[in-house]
């Protein structure tokens, strides 16, 4: 099965590709000539401590930053309106208009994203007991994060870029988030989850990418990492990033 998957990879176009990708903020080098290729149909953990360059890479993939040099390709093209139509992005902060209520947010996503599955979103929101007329600004931080995740995962996107989806939430919310991600992404989509909280998500990862000070120090299949080191990814991560 794994061999078949690898064979498929060779004929598929990469969903996400960095070629000598470099990003500099003033004197700080956030990404240093990074080369990375990710194929569709995988759940990839982009793992690294704070300041390792994870968010920068995801912002570059969304066209929210322009690289200092090198390039980043989304399904073969530079980020732009076309790639944004099939990339579902969950940033690491509140990003929805606070004056909107749940119904207005559903309308907004339906208006702009052709791949938004409103029925799926409504089902998920119903299961969480949201009031359709409740305004976002009246909600708690945790509730807002759940809505953001539901809206993002209700898109039938080709690529999901999830930046720190489980940071700063309680364990019960983490379970909900992981269940929502796993239960809603399309099988042929690429899911990139950036986090430094490995233990909670390592069981769902097909591949891991370790990012350290703007360099990729490891990119392998999860089971290879576990087999080679004889320990889980969380422990390998702690060894690699030991202070």
């Amino acid at each position, binding site marked *: 099965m794994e061999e078949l998957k690898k064979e498929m990879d060779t004929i598929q176009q990469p969903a996400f590709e960095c070629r000598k990708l470099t990003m500099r903020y003033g004197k700080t080098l956030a990404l240093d000539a990074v080369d990375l290729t990710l194929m569709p149909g995988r759940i990839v953990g982009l793992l690294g401590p704070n300041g390792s360059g994870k968010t920068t890479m995801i912002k570059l993939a969304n066209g929210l930053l*322009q690289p200092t040099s090198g390039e980043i390709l989304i399904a073969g093209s530079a980020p732009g*309106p076309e790639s*944004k*139509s099939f990339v579902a992005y969950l940033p690491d902060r509140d990003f929805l208009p606070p*004056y909107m209520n749940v119904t207005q947010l559903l309308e907004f996503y339906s208006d702009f994203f052709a791949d938004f599955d409103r029925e799926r979103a409504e089902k998920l929101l119903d299961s969480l007991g949201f009031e359709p007329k409740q305004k976002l600004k009246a909600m708690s931080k945790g509730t807002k994060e759940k809505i953001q995740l539901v809206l993002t995962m209700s898109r039938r996107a080709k690529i999901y870029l999830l930046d720190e989806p489980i940071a700063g939430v309680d364990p019960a919310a983490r379970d909900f988030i992981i269940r929502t991600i796993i239960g809603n992404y399309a099988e042929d989509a690429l899911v990139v989850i950036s986090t430094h909280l490995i233990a909670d998500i390592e069981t769902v990862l097909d591949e891991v990418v370790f990012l350290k000070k703007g360099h990729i120090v490891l990119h392998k299949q999860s089971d290879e990492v576990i087999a080679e080191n004889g320990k889980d990814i969380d422990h390998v991560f702690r060894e690699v990033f030991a202070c």
Partner: protein
Amino acid sequence: MFRKLLKYDMKEVGMVMLPLYAAMLVLAAAAGLSMRFSIMKGTRDFVASTVPGVVTLILMLVYGALILGMAVMTLVMTTRNFRDNLLGSRGYLMNTLPVTTQSQVLSKSLNGLIWIALGGAASAVSGTIALLFIMRKQDWAEFFQTMNEMFGDRMSPWMMLLQLVILFVLGALQIVTKIFVSISVGNLWRSKRGLGAVLMFVGLTVLQTLIGNRLTHLTPDASISYSLMGNGISMVFGLNGGEAGLFTARQMGFAAGQDIVYIVLFLIGTIWVLRNKMDLQ
């Protein structure tokens, strides 16, 4: 997609502006009605010492403050709409929509222009409502006769209105786009971005004044472009030594041309910065 962007931009600003317009209309009607009861029947003099007179004064003060507040809020809301949606935390949503940067910037600019125009219209309508309560039929007749005597054969009021509307629309759009390019350039600063935007705005204004002065040296026809208000008054009343009359085609060409050039430059600058130098915090 552009229409959808504009729809959401207008909704956002409208939530604040529409109640303000409604309050203006209600206050204008109340002030007009109150004034009607404060005017002596025979002499038609306004009596401020009676209760209706005091109420009228208070209502007119509040109405004036509301018009001023509405003008300030129009600029604040259209500026916030641009800054929060494209350069603030909401930029993480708006800049990842499948639309071009041009569409985003044009939608915000048109939104600003529409609300400035609606603010002007709401002020005019509310003022007319107040006058409808105060003025009698014969007052209106006198008013139109005076207007006719003032302008009469010198200019058509419709042509005058058209010229002023053209200059107002272009002038408003120029200011809106100048604010947007200033905010975008200010956003390039790592910190104190607000200060960067203000400095950019002041710098651009100084530069425009210098260019305007230079052009006026070359031809006096260029002078109306950077003193619309003064020249508008001069056009109507013939003040400042000028002769009352419509702007010539050449004057209009210089004024509109300069505004259009600035609008295009500011739009290009804003789009370039957002596309190539965006740095959301």
